[in-house]
């Protein structure tokens, strides 16, 4: 088992990993940029090292500085959290070549599942439906047009190197398709240094359902059931829940088994998530694979009772996954609301600034994962996440009631947050009936259509 782990991240996920280390008796080394000097979780770590100024490129995204810190702190492993360098194969490679384990999959598996086009090929070998579209990156606008006519509009132009909801454009006709391909290429080149784009049918009224898996180094893969993340705005998740209210038991099992096949096909080890789109007929299609621990992992931890971050550390240290699939329960119902520092009444504009009042909910069935505190300042350098509010109760109705109660208790002032939006969602009849899809938030709140 590792003696010391460096946490190459910040905010709530850094705190999450430090907590897991402490429970396992592993030394935790935190890194921070100058903007995070007053972060509360630094005192919880055994050591904290300043690695640079606020700019991510010179701190949390800077491989040289992070590896330097790992060396001076003499750690045996690095946990990358999510975002930043979590799915950067080069970082994983450099770390391992310096004899510092990277807590995540092999470089090969990461590259395979991280590339949208290669992932589709893996899916086909695992006998999983992929969304009809181009088998290879688009060579020309003519190819795009021909394919769009074959699979039918609307279509989605997606960056091969994109992910997390970025680098996607819808096209409803020939003219907007040509534009989408041109602009999509330029944006992908700028954002991901990879201008390859490909085409997919736009699955309408779809639900986003993903499956949590963990694999060890010996080829064993176990799933931890699904999470329904259909409530999104511009492809950014707002609310997640487990179980999915929209799936029959049969579809749920087929979906989860498919995720395990996908992970095995990729030779995947560590924690990962296989994302699917599910249409009204409960046919599911691969969306993408996320080779990291995800923001919404607490939802799964609630219904299965496992500690996913501890499992990440164990399998990375070479332990066998001693769980059998039939030993993984799915008990009760869990819902997570992402609380962001955004003004939901004004286009979700990010709201930086000091937090003067911070009252966190508690009581039965409530978990709050946050790094914020009274006196902490949200800066514009990083994402706008304040924290995650998770509830877990025996039924969906009870979970919603607890979430509404907890949202009423949650006070964050004076910055604007998404708490008011979540209150509305938790009172909305469509949501209560479990009748939403990935475009629902944008339709109901008319906060802006997906790009296209």
């Amino acid at each position: 088992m590792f003696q010391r782990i460096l946490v190459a991240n910040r905010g709530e996920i850094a705190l999450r990993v430090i907590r897991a280390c402490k429970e396992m008796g592993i030394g935790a080394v935190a890194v921070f940029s100058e903007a995070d000097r007053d972060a509360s979780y630094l005192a919880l770590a055994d050591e904290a090292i300043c690695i640079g100024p606020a700019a991510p490129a010179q701190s949390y995204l800077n491989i040289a500085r992070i590896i330097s810190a790992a060396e001076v702190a003499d750690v045996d492993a690095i946990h990358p959290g999510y975002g930043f360098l979590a799915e950067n194969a080069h970082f994983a490679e450099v770390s391992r070549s310096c004899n510092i384990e990277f807590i995540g999959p092999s470089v090969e598996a990461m590259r395979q599942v991280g590339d949208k086009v290669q992932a589709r090929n893996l899916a086909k070998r695992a006998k999983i439906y992929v969304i009809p579209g181009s088998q290879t990156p688009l060579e020309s606008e003519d190819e795009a047009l021909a394919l769009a006519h074959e699979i039918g509009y609307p279509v989605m132009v997606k960056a091969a190197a994109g992910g997390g909801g970025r680098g996607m454009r819808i096209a409803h006709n020939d003219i907007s398709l040509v534009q989408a391909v041109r602009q999509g290429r330029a944006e992908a080149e700028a954002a991901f240094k990879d201008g390859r784009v490909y085409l997919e049918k736009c699955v309408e009224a779809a639900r986003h359902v993903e499956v949590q898996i963990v694999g060890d180094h010996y080829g064993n893969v176990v799933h931890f059931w699904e999470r329904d993340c259909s409530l999104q705005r511009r492809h950014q998740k707002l609310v997640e829940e487990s179980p999915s209210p929209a799936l029959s038991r049969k579809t749920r099992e087929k979906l989860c088994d498919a995720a395990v096949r996908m992970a095995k096909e990729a030779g995947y080890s560590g924690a990962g998530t296989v994302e699917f789109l599910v249409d009204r007929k409960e046919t599911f299609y691969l969306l993408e694979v996320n080779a990291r621990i995800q923001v919404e992992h607490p939802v799964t931890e609630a219904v299965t009772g496992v500690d996913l971050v501890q499992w990440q550390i164990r399998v990375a240290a070479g332990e066998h996954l001693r769980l059998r699939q039939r030993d993984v329960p799915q008990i009760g119902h869990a819902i997570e609301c992402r609380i962001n520092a955004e003004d939901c009444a004004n286009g979700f504009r990010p709201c930086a600034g000091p937090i003067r009042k911070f009252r966190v909910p508690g009581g039965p069935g409530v978990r709050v994962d946050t790094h914020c505190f009274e006196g902490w300042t949200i800066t514009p350098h990083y994402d706008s996440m304040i924290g995650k509010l998770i509830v877990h109760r025996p039924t969906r109705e009870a979970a919603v009631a607890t979430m509404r109660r907890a949202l009423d208790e949650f006070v964050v002032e004076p910055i604007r947050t998404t708490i008011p939006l979540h209150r509305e969602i938790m009172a909305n009849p469509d949501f209560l009936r479990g009748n939403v899809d990935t475009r629902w938030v944008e339709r109901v709140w008319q906060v802006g259509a997906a790009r296209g």
Partner: protein
Amino acid sequence: MADEKTGKERPVAGTPSEGAALDTIHKLVDLMEKHGLVEVEVEQADLAVRLRKGGAEVTAAAPASPAPAAPAAPPKAESAPGATINSPMVGTFYASSSPEGEAFVKVGDHVTEETVVCIIEAMKVFNEIRAEMSGTIEKVLVKSAQAVEFGQPLFAVRPD
């Protein structure tokens, strides 16, 4: 004339255009906040304004996108005005170029911007650190083979 602290241009008090100029400046500041701009320069018939946001670099975050390694030269770590030379990187401090060798600088030495004051080793690369200021070494704050972090004071310096 420019305000020394913020670099903001101030219209000459008492002139008829002062109100309009302040309006323009307020609008520009709002725009900067709204769009996350760091520097704005505007020239009108009767007013030229340049506003620069002070403090650390403001960069929009893109936490979901992977980025290749940045082998860029380390930026200058801001010292307290003339008081210390701070580490521009994370690594191991060495006072001399070899274990038996003489220290690069000692207390009482005068340094200029280009003077190499120490080595910081990071990932097996030995980086020469320059004083980047002119003054006299008053105190050596760290020991050879000590781990240092970004921004950590290495030398106390009395500036010229």
